[in-house]
């Protein structure tokens, strides 16, 4: 832990500015910018091929960007900084024939821990993730889900300042998802900066302080869920018994979907909600009338709609 106090911790920030990377004809990242501060969990969402993995690999120095800068703590990232990063790549990879304790201890030592500290950290993290009984087993003897836990242990074992997790929830059972999200929130509480990518939007919504939506290598939107919601038109749910085609006659109103709970309509800013209510009353008895907050899924659909 940093003994110089909170001031120094606050400075710890991953700053990615105008990152650009092409692979032949394919533009993987196009002027992408984002930042992750200490104590913050940032979720990276987007289709397959949106550039999430390229972005993380660039931070870890595995691929070099064509343009743009990546800084940590205000300076360009070097090998010494990366010793304080924890990384879980999209394509998992550990030594299949190595025993769990030896494996986690080895990676801890590569990150600069001495032999006894590495052993202690490896033991404690394996125990915390429910693998305490299997310290001397080879990785290959474990189930897919448990191998993934070991991968997570390797990312966490040296108590990193910045965590980069590429789809850490993929392939986990609900229990493991729960324990991983708790772990992440606890790490953030302890001052870690965390960036993770996921396709599980409800999870991102629940765990993250901020969300970055990537598409075609570009940042489409970034901010807290509340901030992002403001970009969406407000949504009204209205149920009129016996009919559902009444909103078609109104201007400035768009039907999002309709189901047994009524009609969900998007309304433009400044639209007259009382006029909508009157129109509904004219159509029949109104059973329900109220604003509905949109989730990340709606936002995602809205942002990525062609």
């Amino acid at each position, binding site marked *: 832990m940093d003994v110089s106090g909170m001031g120094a911790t606050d400075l710890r920030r991953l700053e990615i500015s105008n990152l650009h990377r092409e692979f032949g004809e394919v533009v993987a990242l196009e002027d992408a910018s984002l930042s992750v501060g200490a104590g913050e969990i940032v979720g990276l969402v987007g289709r397959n091929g949106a550039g999430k993995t390229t972005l993380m*690999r660039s931070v870890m*120095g595995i691929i*070099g960007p064509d343009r743009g800068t990546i800084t940590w703590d205000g300076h360009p990232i070097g090998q010494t900084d990366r010793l304080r990063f924890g*990384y879980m790549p999209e*394509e998992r*990879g550990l030594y299949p024939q190595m025993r769990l304790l030896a494996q986690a201890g080895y*990676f801890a030592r590569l990150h600069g821990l001495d032999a006894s500290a590495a052993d202690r950290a490896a033991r404690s993290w394996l125990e915390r993730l429910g693998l305490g009984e299997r310290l001397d087993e080879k990785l290959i003897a474990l189930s897919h889900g448990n191998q993934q836990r070991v991968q997570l242990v390797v990312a966490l074992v040296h108590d990193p300042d910045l965590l980069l997790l590429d789809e850490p929830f993929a392939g986990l059972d609900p229990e493991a998802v729960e324990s991983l999200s708790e772990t992440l929130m606890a790490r953030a509480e302890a001052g870690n900066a965390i960036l993770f990518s996921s396709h599980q939007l409800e999870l991102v919504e629940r765990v993250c302080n901020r969300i970055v939506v990537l598409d075609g290598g570009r940042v489409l939107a970034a901010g807290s869920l509340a901030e992002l919601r403001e970009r969406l038109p407000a949504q009204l749910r209205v149920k009129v018994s016996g009919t559902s085609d009444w909103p078609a006659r109104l201007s400035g109103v768009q039907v999002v979907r309709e189901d047994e709970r009524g009609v969900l309509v998007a309304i433009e800013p400044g639209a007259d909600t009382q006029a909508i209510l009157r129109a509904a009353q004219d159509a029949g008895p109104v059973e329900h009338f109220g604003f509905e907050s949109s989730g990340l899924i709606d936002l995602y659909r809205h942002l990525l709609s062609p």
Partner: protein
Amino acid sequence: MSRGSVIWLVAGREISERVESRAVRITTVIMTVAVVAAVVVPGLIHSSSKPTRVGLVGSGAQAIGPSLTATASALKVKARIEKVRDGATARAKVKHGSLDVALSVGSSGATAVVPHTLSPQTRALLTATLTVDHQRSVLAAAGLPPATIREALAPVPLATVAIAPPPSHQAARAVAAIGAALFLYLVLVLYGNAVATGVAQEKTSRTAEVLISTVRPEQLLAGKVVGIGMVGLGQLAIPVVAALIANAIEQSAKIPSDVWFLLPACLLFFALGYGLYAFAFAAAGATVARQEEVQITTIPLTIPLLVGYLLASILAGDPHSPAIAVLSFVPPLTPSLMPARIAVGTAPWWQVILAVLIMLVAIYAMVRLATRIYKATLVRSGPRLSWREALRVRPG
């Protein structure tokens, strides 16, 4: 953490992974058994170095026992004498192979019973003994005093002066040359493949991506090469020490003393050859997309090793070949050809030193080239790259 300690950490993991592996233990045992057998078995087969077992049948023959021992030592022939009761027992013993010859002495002469033929050496021993014994009894009958008889029959010391040293162990040298080249070919292919397979495993299991985010590729590569090299040296040292012990115990082993200096030469050229080839094999391992492709990508590297071995076997028959002398300075061929030239005795010391220097330059160039390919291809996904493509990949 310093660069050096990271390399040692990586090397340490390689060593413990291999020491734990059953395959490595089994190959060590097989190599040890093979080398000890190579030392001991020729000694067992080569009976000439064993004492000739002579059975003396009946009192007449047994009387010449002391005389036989004295003659054997004068002729520098090893003989073990055994008294046998009668002719039938002696025949049985010769038949069963517990005696090489059974000698009986009669009034008109002596009879030697042998399995097939009487070797010239044994014939000389027996004839000389019988003749001396006969002369002793004639001289005694003539009334000469025993001191005079002893003096008359004492062997005349014979000193040998060689004008030119013997063509020392030409056959043994040729065998040693081929043996050394074959040995270096095998161990370089073995440990080269271990490096290539290890690199390919890290690449195809995607462990490399986690590693490269922490460790510099150069450190990872150097640690792997050093770790596997140390396991290799250990695996070689065990059979060599076992062979030395076996040779000390089984004195009969006919290894000419001037061939023993080949051992340090082999270790030196193993180290140099490994330095050159291990990095090339590592680069080959990094270009694959799937583990099985290691076999294909390493073929171009095993060819020069094989050619080196074949040239060494030609050299064994033609130790002064100028073409092979020139080729022994070509770095990929040096590790097998230079020890072979040392074995046949046609490599002056200055040529050995020159070859070592050329090797060091070649290793330096290879480390740079291989590191470049390794860095560019280790965390790259997609199909296997040809060597030419691998060189063109932009690093990072």
